[in-house]
């Protein structure tokens, strides 16, 4: 396993092995599972991601917060300020996220609350760049390794580190993945991670009534936009003054410092607003 983003990228550079191949090799050595078995399992993961999007697109989802039901599909309309591609991508992320909230089958990436970001970004980037299934697969491998590094250096859950550790990480994983898919250099990948994570640093976890609905579903959309934004910046040659690994460490410290109320307890942030409390009362009054 890799301890830092720089270690991963440096090793790929010095050994001149493509990133996804290095990651698969390392995974196999570390877990004693053959590379072909790993690949098969990852292909299944990708297939489930696709399936959840397809199923979610055709399912009417009733959520415990009625007002939040079936919002995402409204975005499947021509873009106003956004181009159609970007509008589609945010719609897909939210549609998967709604499906998750309605107890649909999804792939946690890295968590269920943030599960819409990575598939939406991957599938839309594939369309935009005209890439193959294999390219998407390779990008998924990169995303997973970046997630593992962030998880080990910091955390991957709202209850431990706030939403920066869920949607923030999903966004960084996605940015790394599509920078790789677009043929970006290692420096650009590292910058894409740094820039995306930095933008969502400090994001709190404050689900209304404790339900993974609000703000979660729409936060998946910002995760997507942020991933494309960071990638666009990195591929244009912009750099982050603070290196990716140091930002991850900062994220860990911020996450630890966030108070209990802002870490998936449903006691702070928008959950603690007048409306948030009313919704909670309405939902649970009959139980």
């Amino acid at each position: 396993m890799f301890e830092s983003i720089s270690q991963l990228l440096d090793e790929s550079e010095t050994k001149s092995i493509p990133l996804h191949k290095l990651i698969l090799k390392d995974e196999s050595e570390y877990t004693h599972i053959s590379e072909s078995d790993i690949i098969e399992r990852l292909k299944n993961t990708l297939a489930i991601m696709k399936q959840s999007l397809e199923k979610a697109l055709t399912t009417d989802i009733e959520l415990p917060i009625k007002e939040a039901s079936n919002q995402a599909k409204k975005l499947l309309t021509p873009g106003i300020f956004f181009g159609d591609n970007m509008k589609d991508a945010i719609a897909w992320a939210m549609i998967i996220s709604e499906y998750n909230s309605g107890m649909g089958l999804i792939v946690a990436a890295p968590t269920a609350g943030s599960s819409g970001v990575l598939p939406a970004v991957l599938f839309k980037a594939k369309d935009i760049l005209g890439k193959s299934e294999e390219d998407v697969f390779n990008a998924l491998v990169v995303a997973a390794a970046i997630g593992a590094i962030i998880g080990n250096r910091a955390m991957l859950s709202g209850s431990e580190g706030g939403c920066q550790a869920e949607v923030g990480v999903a966004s960084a994983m996605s940015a790394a993945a599509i920078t790789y898919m677009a043929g970006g250099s290692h420096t650009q990948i590292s910058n894409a991670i740094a820039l995306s994570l930095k933008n969502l640093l400090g994001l709190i976890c404050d689900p209304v009534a404790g339900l993974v609905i609000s703000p979660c579903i729409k936060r998946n959309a910002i995760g997507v936009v942020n991933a494309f934004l960071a990638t666009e910046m990195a591929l244009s040659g912009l750099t982050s003054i603070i290196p990716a690994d140091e930002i991850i460490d900062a994220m860990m410290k911020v996450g630890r410092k966030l108070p209990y109320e802002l870490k998936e307890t449903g006691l702070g942030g928008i959950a603690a607003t007048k409306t948030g409390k009313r919704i909670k009362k309405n939902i649970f009054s009959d139980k």
Partner: protein
Amino acid sequence: MKYTSIFDVIGHIMVGPSSSHTAGACQIAYVAQLLFGKKPKSVKIGLHGSFAETYRGHGTDIAILAGLLGFKPEDEEIKNAFEIAQEEGLNYTFEIVDLGSEYHPNSVSIEMSDKIEKMTVIGSSIGGGNIIIKNVNGLDAGFGGEPNTLVILNQDKIGALVNIANTLSKFNLNIGSMKISRDLKKKIALTWLEADSVIPDEVISALKKYSEIKWVRIINV
């Protein structure tokens, strides 16, 4: 390291809405009933920390019940756990507990019983659907979602470990790691180990031949 595989990050195929509060909760309960070794008749579920605050919202209660009924986090039947529990005659209660600050905010204590036996398992959902079983019947534990885990409760006496190690080597099983937690007063020990390959069921009967071994479970999740 908390995450030892890329599948810890994108490998959890699961029914929503929350990897920690739904999938992880279900997984803890699923492992708990594997440790109990049979279907419990009655369960007492104690929710701690964030589990206590938000369990109804995330379906934590449904998920724990589903796990205790033998459903895994990816089973779309989870939704119907309350109805299935009723059909199968499983008695359950939920309560809010404070396990203390040494426990992760997403922790649950599950007391399972039937007419003959009782077992309490405490587990924590540490993020992204990953779990750790922290305590079994008062003995500290520390195993989680690693595949090919063997858990043994034995009398704490000389030779117990040698017998375990010898038996595993007879089955050509390579032990990746092994840990023991002991209760010096009761003279019992919980031993858990991870093997490098699939543990065949025959290992159980081979180990049970030793009088000091009380029970053996294979946790393959």
